[in-house]
């Protein structure tokens, strides 16, 4: 259960390390944003179908809706700006961390699935939020890209609080 969380955190630590070494370009930020959302959409889809607790399923469904909405907006912006998202070590790590999380979750069921999914969502949103604050917003050059990051940031805060609430309610039941 810990492995995918470690993978996701490692991916985002890498993002932090990158920030110190070299700030990502707008094209790289675009790729990181789209990947970070897609990773959460994939996990959310799984929770929608495999979750056992109704609140966990509803949270998964909301993650799919919210992050799909953010991605639609992000893709529309980069298309308008004629920026082609550029694959980079951070987006690659996010992608492989996300795939590993899904692989791990697929092996679980019932309360164990719910707990693993929600634990990962808490860690993931916290780390993405840190990346948004410490790396993505400070590095974004284009004003509209920066503004998009600023405007979607509160969604990550809301999701993190929601996931933490679920985490404590699941904890109380077991």
């Amino acid at each position: 259960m810990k492995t995918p969380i470690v993978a996701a955190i490692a991916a985002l630590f890498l993002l932090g390390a990158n920030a110190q070494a070299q700030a990502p370009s707008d094209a790289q930020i675009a790729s990181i944003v789209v990947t970070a959302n897609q990773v959460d959409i994939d996990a959310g889809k799984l929770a929608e179908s495999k979750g056992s607790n109704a609140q966990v399923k509803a949270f998964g469904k909301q993650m799919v809706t919210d992050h799909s909405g953010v991605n639609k907006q992000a893709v529309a912006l980069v298309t308008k700006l004629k920026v082609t998202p550029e694959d980079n070590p951070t987006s690659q790590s996010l992608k492989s961390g996300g795939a590993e999380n899904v692989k791990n979750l697929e092996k679980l069921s019932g309360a164990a699935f719910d707990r693993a999914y929600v634990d990962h969502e808490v860690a993931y949103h916290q780390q993405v939020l840190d990346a948004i604050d410490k790396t993505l917003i400070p590095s974004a050059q284009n004003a509209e890209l920066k503004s998009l990051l600023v405007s979607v940031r509160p969604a990550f805060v809301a999701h993190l609080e929601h996931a933490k609430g679920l985490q404590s309610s699941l904890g109380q039941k077991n």
Partner: protein
Amino acid sequence: MRFDVRAGAVAAGLVVCAWALAESRGASAAAGARTHEIVIQALQYRPETLKVRRGDVVVWINKDPFPHTATAPKVFDSGSIVADGSWRFTATRAGVHPYICTLHPNMKGTLQVE
């Protein structure tokens, strides 16, 4: 006898209709019903607090790329307002009504109806 009862019922019906008409005219005339907008953007209701008069219309406009709600338990509930969608509500109950988004409960607003 039967005829009288019917006539009475018709008369009473007419009185009710006339009263209802007068009431509805009075309400719209008295309120001068204004329409107010609350924009939802970056998970905030703007303005966060809105004062309106009874009979006014409030429209929540969602400019975020995902759904929100405006929900004051037992007073009003928009249900899901989709991205780029809106929801109209006629404020009828006076009072201070705090509301939230049920999907993102850290979003808070207040509707004051005078």
